[in-house]
């Protein structure tokens, strides 16, 4: 066991910290879940990209630094520590990209990754449908074969699509084999949202920002070149994304370490002597540290080529409920001012409440833990 960073890693961290210190906007950008805010965030993304901080772990060819997973962790820690803007490109970079690297053709990678990294093209996820939430296998959106045109014609409605109203592209699952049941017969498509037949309607999330969208496809043509992975194998491909969404890449410990640090400051300012608040903040630090350490253990396994284990469900439940309790503790400190909408804590609290719901509800995750990790019977 060695919990020290190498000279190279420390240098990498120092470089990241210096750059972020010099470039992170001093006044926070407006919410990236509004049209104006999204645009402003893209400006920041471009800045990150030009300095090659947008996708540090990617190959240089695609705008990255070939950074190790350790360096990626360090960068994330510094990113949140610096209070840098939310990544409006994250659905592409963190959810789609890993899948593209694993299942995409070289053409697809060359075509999409650079513009994803620069923010020139932005991606949203088209999975949920009005009747397919926790039960994704209930997807009814379909793609019909157009042999003549060499592609597929998509129809159906996706919904609760994060940032859907502001993105240029959607990656989603459509049923290519109407006779197949449940998880079979689905195909993973990359869909330009300016394709004829696509209608996007943004709508508000809990906090009122237009963070959600419905994406309607009405006989939308998508060429074979935009099928990711094999036809009818979409579920397998999608699960790889789900893995990275629930797992390491989307929720780096830096986020919770930073929130915990803000909670510590709030406690010092408001209730440094209140034993109840002291217990809560201590528990917050314990949990955030536990999450960081558990990630280090996972990264150690991965970097040594050992399997990370079926633990992404454990992780997802833990970070999402930690995030909720961090904000709950902060609001408790604010007392009668807690209800004020202009505090970052109330905004963060509402966002935190989505954690136990999206990327597979925590009820589903606990089933998965019981069944796949503990070996309890499915039914």
């Amino acid at each position: 066991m060695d919990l020290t960073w190498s000279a190279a890693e420390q240098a990498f961290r120092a470089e990241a910290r210096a750059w972020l210190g010099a470039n992170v906007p001093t006044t926070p950008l407006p919410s990236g879940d509004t049209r104006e805010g999204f645009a402003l965030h893209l400006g920041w993304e471009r800045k990150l990209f030009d300095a090659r901080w947008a996708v540090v772990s990617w190959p240089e060819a695609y705008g990255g630094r070939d950074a190790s997973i350790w360096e990626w962790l360090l960068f994330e820690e510094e990113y949140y520590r610096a209070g840098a803007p939310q990544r409006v490109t994250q659905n592409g970079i963190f959810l789609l990209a890993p899948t593209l690297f694993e299942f995409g053709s070289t053409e697809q990678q060359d075509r999409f990754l650079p513009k994803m990294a620069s923010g020139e093209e932005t991606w949203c996820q088209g999975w949920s449908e009005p009747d397919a939430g926790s039960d994704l296998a209930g997807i009814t959106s379909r793609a019909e074969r157009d042999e003549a045109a060499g592609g597929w014609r998509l129809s159906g409605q996706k919904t609760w699509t994060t940032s859907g109203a502001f993105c240029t592209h959607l990656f989603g699952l459509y049923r290519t084999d109407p006779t197949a049941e449940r998880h079979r017969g689905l195909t993973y498509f990359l869909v330009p949202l300016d394709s004829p037949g696509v209608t996007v309607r943004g709508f508000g999330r809990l906090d009122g920002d237009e963070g959600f969208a419905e994406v309607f496809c009405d006989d939308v043509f998508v060429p074979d070149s935009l099928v990711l992975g094999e036809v009818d194998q979409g579920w397998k491909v999608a699960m790889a994304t789900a893995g990275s969404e629930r797992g390491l890449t989307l929720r780096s410990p830096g986020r919770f370490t930073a929130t915990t640090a803000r909670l510590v400051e709030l406690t010092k300012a408001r209730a440094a002597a209140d034993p109840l608040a002291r217990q809560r903040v201590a528990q917050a630090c314990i949990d955030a540290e536990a999450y960081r350490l558990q990630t280090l253990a996972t990264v150690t396994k991965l970097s040594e080529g050992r399997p990370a284990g079926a633990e992404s469900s454990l992780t997802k439940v833990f970070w999402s409920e930690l995030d909720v309790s961090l904000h709950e503790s902060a609001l408790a400190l604010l007392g009668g001012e807690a209800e004020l909408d202009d505090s970052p804590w109330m905004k963060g609290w509402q966002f935190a409440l989505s954690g136990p719901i999206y990327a597979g509800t925590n009820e589903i995750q606990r089933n998965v833990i019981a069944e796949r990790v503990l070996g309890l019977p499915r039914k």
Partner: protein
Amino acid sequence: MRFAFTDDQLAFRDAVRVLLEKECPPSTVRAAWTNTTGRTTSAWTALGEMGVLGALVPEADGGLGLSELDVVLLAEETGRVALPEPFVEHVFVGAPLVASEATATGMMTVTAGDPFVPYADTADVIVRLGHDSFLVDPARDSDLTPRRSVDTSRRLFAVERGSSDRDLTPAEVSTAYWRANLGFAAQLVGLGHHLLESTVEYVLERKQFGVPIGSFQAIKHKLADVRIALEFAAPLVYRAAYSLTHDDPDQRIHVGMAKAAAADAAALAARHALQCHGAIGYSFEYDLHLWIKRVWALGAAWGDSTWHRDLVARAILDS
């Protein structure tokens, strides 16, 4: 010994329920988020005509001269429909404090708050409670700084004291506190019941994996816990109303118990309601959040559960 309401009290509750179902459907609550006042106009007028707004005002001053026990169920009903009005502020605190024909009928609206005062811009009389408790001189133009609540229908204002404002007496202040917290506790129980009922409806109709999600034990047990929390919070609220009505020496303890239990039960209802609804409940267009955010606001206003438990602890341990 009889721990139940009278038929008259229940009949009054039913009448107000009917009125509110008509005057305050979800569309009215939603409208209050975007209109100029954050209020309903018609529901308030109708409550005034029924005499509810002057329920605690002495008959001599044109009110109904009723007791906390007579009105606690009415507050619960206003919570059930998430009535966007200074109901507790006016009926439980302001009107009895500034007792008059006008306040009794609702011709004049009295609002009150700590730390912020809701609807101070549209009220006729403003009462500010806190470290410094005073009644704003209606003659002066009150200088108000708007503050935005997560429940946008609650138009909040910071109120600065003016030289001509009058101090509230200690008796006025404590009456205001215990009555306000009783009223909010009752509204929280009503809000909790609505959240539970609408979630039960939803999980019965929402199907995943080929069955209603209400058939999953994880959903069942969450909603059972909410039902239990409400089942045992309500009696504390009714008892607090009885204690205030009969000037029980322990009335503060009883109100503290009621507010703490009601705030916790409603918070649990809000949390589980959102989780059981999933992404649909998380959507702004869906009405659920109107109730959830009211719970967040009222749970912390005039002292959160920790504050009230602390009050109870002082009475138990330090006496």
